Each structure stands twice: as C-alpha cells, then as structure tokens.
C-alpha cells in the first residue's frame, strides 16, 4: 500500500460524503478524527465492537467474589466472634462491601480495557506531525484513507482534494 493520505474538512457532512465516495471507489477508509463523536461514522468505518463491557463485568464479579470470600473467611474461620449467639456466616451484611468494591473494580477494569483497546497512553503519534492536525480536537474533521497502489493513490487524492481543505501524505503511523 502506498502512503496513506490525511484530508482535512471543516464540516462533518463533507467528511461523511468524502468517506462514502472513496469507499465506493474501493479505497480504504482507515480512520476519521473529529472534535466530537459524529453519529454514524462508526458504522461507515466498520469499527469492531469492543469487549469493554464484558471485561468490566468479569472484573467486577471477580473482585466482588473475592471481597465476599475474604469476609466469610475472616468472620467464620480465621477470627470467629460469637456475639449473642448470632450466626457467624451473616451473609446478608457481607453483601455491602462486595457491591461497593465490585463497582469500582468494574470501572477500573473498564478504563484499562478502554486504554488498551485505543492504544493509549501514547506519548507520540505520526499524525501529530501533520500541520493543522491540532484542530482535530477543536473544530476540524480529518479523514485518513489509503490506496492499494500508486495509480489508485492518485485517484484517491483527486477525490479528497475535490472537497477537502487540504490533503497531506502521512508517514506510516
């Protein structure tokens, strides 16, 4: 594949139109960079579903189970206190702590899964070298696209240049 091209747009609609056109011509739409989540872009770019929720559920349940086991072990086996002949295994009140720590653990696992899935944290990225790319977090909309060979690359550039403000060639990220 030849080097990918980064096209800059000032409106989200222009980006979506360009994205559809290059997909029709068989080029590769790699990614889009927008200052806010633009509806429908994830379907156009066929973003894979992320396992974040599954990771959160698993992490939360494991930690909650561990917290419950810790309480049951300490209150029944390791340090039993007979207070007025009440049952040692008072599971009803042992549910409070697992719920609290379980929710926090789920959130922490979710953040870790999110960062791993997004390839963050990352100190530098080739795209940050592109002039004006800093506007991707403010008010401009960027489309990253690639072509299979040099001829296709020229066609891709032509399509992008027809609607974009500026098209830049990006060093392989």
């Amino acid at each position, binding site marked *: 594949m030849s080097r990918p091209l980064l096209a800059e747009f000032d409106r989200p609609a222009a980006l979506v139109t360009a994205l559809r056109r290059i997909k029709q011509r068989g080029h590769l739409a790699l990614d889009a960079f927008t200052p806010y989540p633009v509806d429908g872009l994830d379907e156009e770019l066929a973003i894979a579903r992320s396992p974040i929720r599954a990771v959160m559920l698993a992490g939360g349940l494991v930690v909650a189970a561990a917290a419950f086991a810790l309480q049951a072990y300490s209150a029944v086996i390791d340090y039993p206190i007979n207070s007025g002949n009440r049952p040692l295994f008072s599971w009803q009140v042992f549910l*409070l702590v697992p719920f609290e720590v379980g929710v926090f653990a789920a*959130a922490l696992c979710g953040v870790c899964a999110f960062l791993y899935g997004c390839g963050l944290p990352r100190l530098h990225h080739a795209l940050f070298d592109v002039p004006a790319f800093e506007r991707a977090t403010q008010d401009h909309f960027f489309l990253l696209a690639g072509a299979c060979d040099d001829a296709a690359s020229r066609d891709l550039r032509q399509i992008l240049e027809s609607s974009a403000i500026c098209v830049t060639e990006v060093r392989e990220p």
Partner: protein
Amino acid sequence: MTRALDPTVEAGSRWIASTRASDVEITQAVADAVFNPVGKAWWIAMLASLAVSIWFALSIIWLFYRGIGIWGLNSTVVWGVVIANYVWWIGIGNAGTLISSMLLLTRQQWRGSINRFAEAMTLFAVAIAGIMPIIHVGRPLYVYWLAPYPNTMSLWPQWRSALVWDFWAIVSYLLFSILFFYVSLIPDAAAMRDRARSHAGQVFYGLLALGWRGSTLQWVRLRTLHTTMAALGVPLVCSVHSIVGLDFAASLMPGWQESIFPPYFVVGAMYSGFAMVVLLALAVRWGFGLQAIITVNHFEVIGRILLMSSIVMGYSYASEWFMAWYGGRHVDRSLVAFEFAGTYAPLFWTLLFCNVLLPQALWWPRIRRSLDALVAISIAILVGMWLERILIIFNTLSHGYMPSLHRGFDFGLWDWTFLVAPFGLFALLFLLLVRLVPAVSMFDMRELSHKEGMT
C-alpha cells in the same frame, strides 16, 4: 474582554443562548477562560479560601492534640457536628455523579454545561466527607485498622459494623468518581493540549490527554465506557448514601431505626447536591462569562428538580411522623413531640421552612427563571439539609430510652469551626480546578451545538 460567545436573549436554541455557536467559538469561550489571566475576584476568593483552609488544618491539629472533647459532645449526645457534616458533605458529593450519570442515561442534552463541575464538586465533597469520620473516631492514628491487612495481632475488621461499610463505600466511591471524572476529561484535555501556547501547558495537558487523537475508534470506545460507568454509577451512588443511612437505621434508637432511612437519605443527597450545583453554576457562569453556555433555561430545569425533591422530602418527613404515631410506641411518639416542641424546636421549624415550605415558590415559572430567587432558595435548602442532618443526631440522642440521660448538646466555638472551615477547603479546591481544567465539557457542547444547528 470580548467574549467568544455573546449571549443573546432571542437565541436559536434552548440550551445555547447565542445566535451562533461554532466549534471554534465554544472552544474559545471555555478554554480561553483557563489560559487567560484571572481577574481580581478569583484572587480574592483564593486568598480567602486559603486562609479558611489553613484555619481548618490548624483546628484539626488542635483536635488531635486535645481530643474530641473540644466539641460540645457528652456521654449522651455522643455524635455532633462532624457526623452531621459527614452526612451532609457526602450528600453534596453524591449529587455530582448522580446528576451526571442520570442525565447521561436519560439523554438530557443540557447536561454538557453542568456535568464537569458537578463531577468535580463530587470529588471534593467526598474527599472532605472522608475526613470527617477519621477525625471523629477519637484515636485517628488507628484508623487504618478499618482495612483488612495481615497484622501481628491477627485481627480482622468487624464486617458487621456500619463504620466498616462506610470506609469501603467512601473509598470505592471516591476512586470511582475520580475515574468517571477523568474519562470524560480526556478529549477536553487533548483540546487544551492543542491550544496551549506555553511548553509547560502542552506537557501538562499532553500527559492528561494520554495521546488522545479523537479517532472514531476512540470515540466509540469512550462512549461505551462512559455510558457503562454511568449505568454503574447510579446504583453505586444510591448504595453509598444508603449505607450512610444504615449508620443510623441499623441501630436500635428511636427515630433512627426506620426502614425509610436509606431512600430518604438518597433523595436528601440529590436535593442538597442540586442546590449546591446552582451556586457553583452561577459562580462559573459569572466568573468566566459563560452566560451563553449555562443559560437561564438550565437553571429553570434545575428549579423543577429542586421542587420535585422538596415534595419528596416533605413526604418523607410526614411518613416518619405518621409511622411514629401508627407504630404506637411511646418512645417514638414522644420523640416526634420533642422534635416539634423540645430543645431544638426552633431549628426544626427552620428546617421545615427551608426544605419544604420555601421551595414551593418554585411552582411559579417567574421564580424559577429569577437567578436571585434561585440563589436564595438554594442557600436555604443547603442550610435546611444541614439542619436536618444535625437534628437527626441531636433529637434522637438527646431523647433516647432513658429519661434520666436526656441532655442537650453544647454548641461552642469548635463546633462552629468544624462547621464553617471545611467550606474553605472546598472553595480552594474548586477555584484551583477551574483554573486547571475546562469547567464545561467542550466536546459535549460541540455535539449539542451541531445537533441544534447552531454552527
């Protein structure tokens, strides 16, 4: 200073009071408030809150030196101002995450203007609430015994104790709130990184942004994470203040041992939290000139929520009185009589006025749209909710089962100190925050502005 977003009355959108709000204008209005030099008002507020924070620190040192006898506690009224503070501050702290996550889950578009500082309010209020039980335990140097850790004494925490539940609830909730706040800050930190002119600013916001590029993949994942955390946050918040309610309800004292306490505490938390949001929103709006982003319509809907909560609070109070009568126990009935006519009756009537009667003024749309009236009502609600927390403690403990032990609380200088001084720390943290991170979620506002066709 010319504003990036000029507020106009005849605006095109309900939630943005401006004729135009392009991405650039929103970013400038919010981000430049952080980059531009601050005005005199910020410095005066900063110095005042710093002085009060130092006062708070010195009082804690004095407390550690002399012990909790410096407060007006006695062997009958064993809890005092600091426990009421704990319940009140954690109530304020509950509201931020509750507001933010419930509004996100119910797709309320106006949340973008208030969620950032409401969540920050949560962080600081929960941190302050966390100080309170620690300084009230009497032997703060042994506080770490609450955590299970391998020790030479072979001791374990007592898992059936409400203090241990509190410990886990506060720690989990504080850490959760930090994550929830941070996750929605990442895209805005990236915008700040890209706008910062100084090298130090670029490094600071660059580290905060973790290399965010705003790619579609990142947005999709962020949204999944954020909504899932919001869905977890609502039950977490309810459980945290329910556990605080259990501190009382799990006892055997008249007026405390009531199954209504957990939900009643959660509503009270949301109530006082929204009142605090009104005050902070007005401060941010005025301080940074964000009249176009935090509009009168926002205050109007918050006014409706306050009205609703005040009705639920009134219902809760009434059901407490009814159950005391219907239950037929002498201690419960005489406690209600003591509330209305006993030692603390003036405070109790003030509470009812502030929490139930005065907020009924919000039925009138004119009152909801008047910022002065809203400020007055919000302050009254905050005072009323604090009175409610302290009276739950005072009334029950002063009027327990044994008439020979009935005594009052001796409210003195150190009780006043521990009531007032935490506000200094709260203000200090909040003032620092609004200088470091954008007070309004910029990407949410951009999305809203595009949806409303304002660009």
